[in-house]
């Protein structure tokens, strides 16, 4: 879809400034917030077995690949 990035960026900034102005009127402060949990760590266990379907599908999803590898930016940095 062709959209004018500059116009949209300007709109986004205008909306944020308007919202910020309204939130700025709130003077009440809040204390530190934290989440209380009974357990704060999870068991890593033995790890999980590899999923060949997942591997195959994700390789199919990749726009560019070479054998078993996804090629991210091949040669972009090579002059």
């Amino acid at each position, binding site marked *: *879809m062709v*959209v004018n*990035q500059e116009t*949209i*960026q300007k*709109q*986004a*900034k205008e*909306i*944020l400034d308007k*919202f*910020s102005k*309204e*939130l*700025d009127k*709130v003077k*009440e*402060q*809040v204390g530190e*917030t934290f989440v209380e949990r009974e357990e704060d760590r*999870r*068991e890593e266990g033995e790890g999980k077995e590899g*999923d060949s*379907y*997942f*591997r*195959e*599908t*994700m390789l*199919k*999803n*990749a*726009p560019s690949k070479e054998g078993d590898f*996804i090629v*991210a*930016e091949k040669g972009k940095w090579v002059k």
Partner: protein
Amino acid sequence: MSALQKLGLIKKEKLTAEENIKKFIEKIKKENKNINAVLEINEKAIEEAREIDKRIKKKGKAGKLAGLGIIVKANINVKGMPASCASKTLESYNCGYNATVIKKIKEEDGIILGMANMDEFACGSSGESSAFGATRNPRNKELIPGGSSSGSAAAMAAGFCDFSLGSDTGGSIRNPASHCGVVGVKPTYGLVSRYGLIDLSMSLDQIGVFAENSEDAAYLLNIIKGKDENEPTTYSSEEIKIEKIRKLKIGIPKLSADPKIWKLVKNRIKEIADKNKWGVKEIEMPYVELGVQTYYPIVYTEFFSGTRKLDGRRYGEKIEDSCGEEVLRRILGGSEISKAEHHGKYYRQALKVKELIKEAFDRAFEKVDCVILPTVPKLPHKIGSKISIEDMYNYDTLTIPANLAGIPGISIPAGEIDKIPVGMQVLCKRFEEGKMFSIAKEFENNYI
């Protein structure tokens, strides 16, 4: 027929899973072109139904969702199906795994019928921003169905499924449920695992359900909820039970909406409260009217962060090069907020007001058992109408506060205005889904 009634027939072998699923697939194939609620049909659904029938015949055993058909919003991963988020960016993306909610549904023999249309990346409140065309409201095809879970709500209203799944970040389940005249539930933040959901705003998103009535919705929610080791924000919780409520105090917040909508909802509250001898009290909820202003800076920031993975390297296209206007607005807005020079100006300010809104609900729930209000402050517009960005954002003024406070909300039909469905929301304390469904059921039992 409700999903629970149908389940009874399937388990007693008076209806086969195959018959149920075939009927839905035929209906979708015949009628979806007029509604555009479904983007992709699961071609293996009938085969899966046959397997369930075989199992019922052989062992007499079947899961809690045996042979029921479910449509899934296209931002939830279903192994072997595309999850495009209704965007050109992920048009070619196929899911390699099941989201936790899908795994749980499949373990109980539920059948995924297909993937539902939606606002692109859940960025919208009307169902018009899908890259694959707007969804139409089955109750009036000229009107929007609401969004962003537009296809899930429309599919439910059109009779394409027994249940559908959506995601709700600022009202994306309750808003279309209201416009389409079905039940939509946003659970407590942390009740349902978000593992496998393609996120819009990770601190606000929740996967929830659409159903024909609140009893069906509670049934499915009991199946998909629970602690998940893949999702650290989840909690264990007790079974959701619908019970008769004898004593109740309802809070009605002073928030603005179309007077016709407020009148309809207040009349319904009065009628049911009088019948049950429940108390009703108007309540002040400071800062809640700042929901939209608080919500968008948080969503812009978290969406910008969440979409950095969509760089076109591992899957799909680079998002900035392939998305629609509203998605780009949120990315560019989030990028602006994340700039070092604005540190604290937008995001931290919004987080502070978010906390104050949460406190306002905590204080309200000290005085009342639930808060009831309209789901959407205005009636849906005609598809294609020119509407300002802020007017679009304002569709969610009454649904956003529940997301900011992390509390559960259900939208149930309240009645009609000019033959357009209007929904009302019941909001309760965190993890009080049982009470919320019990109140909703009382309203449904007395629906005229």
